[in-house]
């Protein structure tokens, strides 16, 4: 036994030595993506295969919703928290490089592996920054049961329309979307963005391309106001002979021979490259997106991350993605055998890769607005395109020059001196010590709330507000003093009440808030009073049913409202149609989002619907604490119903309603979701409110966070002023009522 002891010690020592090493050897690699469905399944299978080959490397896959993807990367990677690898579209590389969210892939890059267009797409300033995985572009879907073959020219769809059965449209595509329109734009020899980064959506060629679309719309060959869901639904239901869409549509269609997984039969279909444009003889060239594997700076330093990157971009991985998820590979040595993939691969060869320039992000909004304006007939092409160019210039204007921080420091110093002096004064005169002593018990009730709200709400807001004093591209910001505020208040040098100017947006916001609060309080209090009646059958059922608008996530109900207002297929249109049949007088369907008044009404209807349950619940709760004997006494006194409400009920529930109304008004003022999802600012940005402007500057207009923060500070100051003013008014009213 004694002899075994040294052996045991030796064993222990070996284990002790080996233990941390074996722990360190299992390297962890984190990969974030926003793949779904089949693509996600393939990715998971590929990672399993990789781990079978490299058991020392642990891989953590995280699927992040697309809407949160960029924001998550931008907050995590700078703190060293983010992924080692992530999958995103190549056109964001310029922005990511500027923010140092990506690093060159180093030895994971294989110069000979990828097709030229993909290599070019992921190369920024002469250096490849990502590994291209798959190519995505629009192509033409053909419904074989409705059309024999694709016409050679885009113009032919207008004639084709006459030969189709009623209710079937010749070509479904998102006509009001600049992304789809770019395919036609390119056939006219124009570009969204020139190589030097200047705005390309201008001039007679662009105007001609839009005029061609206008002809197709007038012939009824293309649906008006189409979005992606409508294109999918039209083609899938056999209501469109052709559709211009991307590979994602194929996933919704079932097999090309018309069989579907659920056993039902759809139309037969196939995919071909887009036709030519007769006016120029050139083929339509859609925009190309290269889905790419990017390495974060931390990931690029890890050999394990680079090994995983090499594997995911390799030939076997590309083959698996192609065979199981119909991905068009970016590799030279992967040849498509499936006809759908072949068609998309063929289209990718003539497609125009999206620019990686950060200016691209600023180009979409003005281009979309101009396109819609012209297609609606609200402005001539010349005027609308010139306005688009001006808007682009406004977004891309150079940041204000750096300002000296001296005035700010002086102001801060003076402010704190003044504060200290005031405190000192108070301490001396008013017996501060006594007041502090008397406040201590109250503070004990408060301290945790102060700590929680202070660190997690106030601190981030103050830091956020401070960014309003800075400007410049992300990663290279400088202090500019009040320049952002001055720029906003001067409407960026343009007319004070032009669309998108601070002052016009403010007017719209005030109208929006007032209308909504009136409707919320009116509907909410009325229903609350009805629900609080002493005798009411089915009370519980009513209460639960009436609160449903508030219970269902508003993201989806806002979109349902938008769908109801669709000019051609919306339920509101259906209602007006049956109403006109019933009345016997034809009522034109309204194009809700083409005029300010109707688009604003649609937004208000949605928000009133979303918001009334809140006021109703608050009313019911407030009525719950009104003593019944007071109301009964009033009844016995012979007070009328209205008088009882006005003189007894309202004063009793008023104190509980006031905070809800005040906060409701503030929340409505900043209600970004509804405006963004229902009208989206249409027409021409006129229905945008201040907070949606702020969001646009932060997230769609070249990430000008300082400018967006300046909007936020202005909103804050406005609301503060408004609430102070209302308080004064109320105090005066109370005083007068008392006298």
């Amino acid at each position, binding site marked *: 036994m004694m002899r075994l002891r040294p052996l045991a010690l030796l064993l222990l020592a070996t284990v002790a030595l080996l233990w941390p090493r074996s722990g360190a050897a299992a390297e962890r690699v984190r990969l974030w993506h926003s793949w779904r469905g089949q693509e996600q399944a393939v990715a998971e299978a590929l990672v399993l295969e990789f781990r079978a080959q490299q058991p020392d490397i642990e891989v953590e*896959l995280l699927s992040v919703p697309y*809407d949160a993807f960029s924001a998550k990367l931008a907050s995590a990677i700078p703190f060293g928290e983010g992924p080692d690898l992530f999958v995103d579209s190549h056109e964001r590389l310029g922005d990511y490089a500027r923010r140092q969210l990506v690093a060159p892939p180093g030895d994971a890059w294989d110069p000979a592996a990828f097709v030229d267009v993909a290599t070019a797409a992921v190369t920024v300033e002469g250096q490849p920054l990502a590994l291209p995985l798959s190519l995505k572009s629009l192509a033409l879907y053909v419904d074989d049961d409705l059309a024999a073959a694709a016409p050679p020219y885009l113009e032919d769809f207008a004639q084709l329309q006459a030969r189709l059965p009623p209710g079937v449209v010749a070509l479904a595509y998102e006509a009001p979307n600049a992304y789809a329109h770019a395919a036609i734009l390119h056939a006219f020899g124009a570009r969204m963005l020139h190589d030097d980064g200047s705005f390309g959506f201008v001039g007679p060629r662009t105007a001609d391309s839009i005029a061609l679309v206008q002809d197709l719309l007038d012939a009824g060959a293309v649906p008006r106001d189409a979005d992606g869901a409508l294109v999918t639904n039209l083609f899938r239901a056999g*209501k469109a002979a052709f559709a211009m869409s991307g590979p994602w549509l194929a996933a919704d269609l079932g097999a090309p021979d018309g069989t579907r997984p659920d056993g039902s039969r759809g139309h037969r279909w196939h995919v071909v490259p887009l036709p030519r444009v007769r006016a120029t003889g050139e083929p339509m060239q859609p925009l190309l997106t290269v889905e790419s594997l990017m390495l974060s700076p931390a990931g690029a330093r890890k050999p394990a991350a680079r090994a995983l990157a090499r594997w995911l971009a390799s030939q076997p991985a590309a083959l698996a993605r192609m065979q199981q998820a119909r991905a068009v590979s970016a590799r030279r040595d992967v040849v498509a055998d499936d006809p759908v993939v072949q068609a998309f691969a063929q289209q990718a060869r003539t497609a125009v890769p999206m620019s990686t320039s950060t200016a691209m992000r600023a180009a979409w909004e003005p281009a979309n607005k101009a396109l819609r304006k012209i297609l609606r007939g609200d402005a001539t092409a010349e005027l609308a395109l010139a306005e688009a160019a001006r808007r682009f210039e406004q977004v891309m204007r150079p940041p204000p020059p750096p300002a000296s921080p001296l005035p700010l420091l002086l102001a801060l110093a003076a402010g704190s001196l003044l504060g200290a002096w005031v405190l000192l004064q108070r301490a001396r005169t008013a017996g501060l010590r006594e007041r502090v002593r008397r406040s201590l018990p109250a503070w004990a009730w408060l301290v945790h709330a102060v700590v929680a709200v202070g660190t997690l709400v106030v601190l*981030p807001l103050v830091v956020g507000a401070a960014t309003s004093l800075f400007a410049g591209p992300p990663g290279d910001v400088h202090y500019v003093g009040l320049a952002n505020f001055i720029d906003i208040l001067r409407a960026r040098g343009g007319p004070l009440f032009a669309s998108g100017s601070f002052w016009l947006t403010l007017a719209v916001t005030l109208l929006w808030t007032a209308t909504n609060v009136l409707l919320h309080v009116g509907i909410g209090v009325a229903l609350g009073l009805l629900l609080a009646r002493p005798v009411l059958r089915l009370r519980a059922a009513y*209460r639960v049913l009436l609160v449903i608008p508030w219970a269902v996530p508003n993201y989806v109900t806002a979109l349902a409202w938008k769908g109801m207002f669709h000019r051609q297929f919306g339920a509101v249109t259906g209602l007006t149609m049956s109403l006109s049949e019933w009345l016997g007088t034809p009522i034109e369907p309204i194009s809700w989002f083409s005029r300010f008044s109707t688009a604003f009404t649609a937004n208000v209807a949605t928000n009133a619907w979303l918001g009334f349950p809140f006021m109703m619940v608050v009313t019911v709760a407030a009525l719950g604490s009104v003593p019944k004997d007071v109301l009964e006494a009033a009844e016995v006194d012979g007070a009328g119903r209205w008088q009882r409400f006005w003189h007894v009920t309202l004063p009793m529930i008023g104190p509980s309603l006031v905070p809800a109304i005040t906060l409701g008004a503030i929340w409505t003022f900043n209600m970004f979701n509804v405006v963004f999802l229902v009208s989206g600012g249409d027409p021409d940005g006129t229905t945008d409110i201040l907070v949606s402007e702020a969001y646009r500057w932060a997230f769609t207009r070249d990430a000008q966070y300082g400018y967006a923060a300046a909007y936020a500070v202005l909103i804050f100051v406005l609301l503060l002023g408004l609430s102070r003013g209302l308080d004064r008014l109320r105090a005066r009213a109370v005083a007068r009522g008392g006298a």
Partner: protein
Amino acid sequence: MNPMRRRRAIESALVHVALVIGVAFALYPVAWVAALAFSGTPAPEPQVMPWPQQPTTAHFEEVVGATATIGDDSVWLFGRQLANSLVVALATATVGVLIAIPAAYALARFDFLGKRSGVGVLLATQMFPAVASAIPLYLVLEALGLLNTRTGLVLCYASTAVPFAIFQLRAAFEAIPVDLEEAAMVDGATRVGAFVRVVLPIARPAIAVTALFAFMSAYNEFILAATLLDDSRMFTLPVMLQHYVGEYDAKWEAFAAGALVVSLPVMALFYVAQRHLVAGLASGGVKG
């Protein structure tokens, strides 16, 4: 008596008509969401009544049956995320209300140094759009070591819900006559004892509503949850729902199905909570 009774009957009928109209207005858009959720291949046609086309429950099966392979084991993602959502939202409601109750009581009953400016700051937090504060919040949580934890998420949600909760509860506490507490304190109760035994029971409707609001705000949020958490086993349901919306296309049918499923627990909770909305008086026995 007869005309009186007839008037009552007519009035009650009118009330029901008004409520039915309100319910129809509340349900119509949701019915469209439901129609979409049950539709196989929705064909775009102007319809008045929201009937599903080619009815199917496939989308519900897809949403509820969502699984994922994480590491080496297969996880029933929907179940996990539903549990996460409920736990996070309930914790938010509890923490938020627990933080807010004493603070609101202090604001309602005591006069102290910093009261006015404190109320001002609380109101101000609601006025500031959160457009530029996501990254600073991330920074704070990183410093506290609470990134990628549900605790951190709950604390964020709860703190955000606290200002509204304080306002709502302060109004409720102010409406309760001070004499009741004073009577209890004369009888030998401490301030805390009087508060717990006298004030809280009377304020039950307001507390129920406040908790419900805090629950809702946490239950439907997704951007913060997706940003602060790095593990799909910790994600809440709205994050999963958002997955049905991609860069180029969206599976609206599945999204709609998911949205309906997500809202069921809220409705159940509301059904339970709504009885508390009027219970305060009966148990408290307040006479004005």
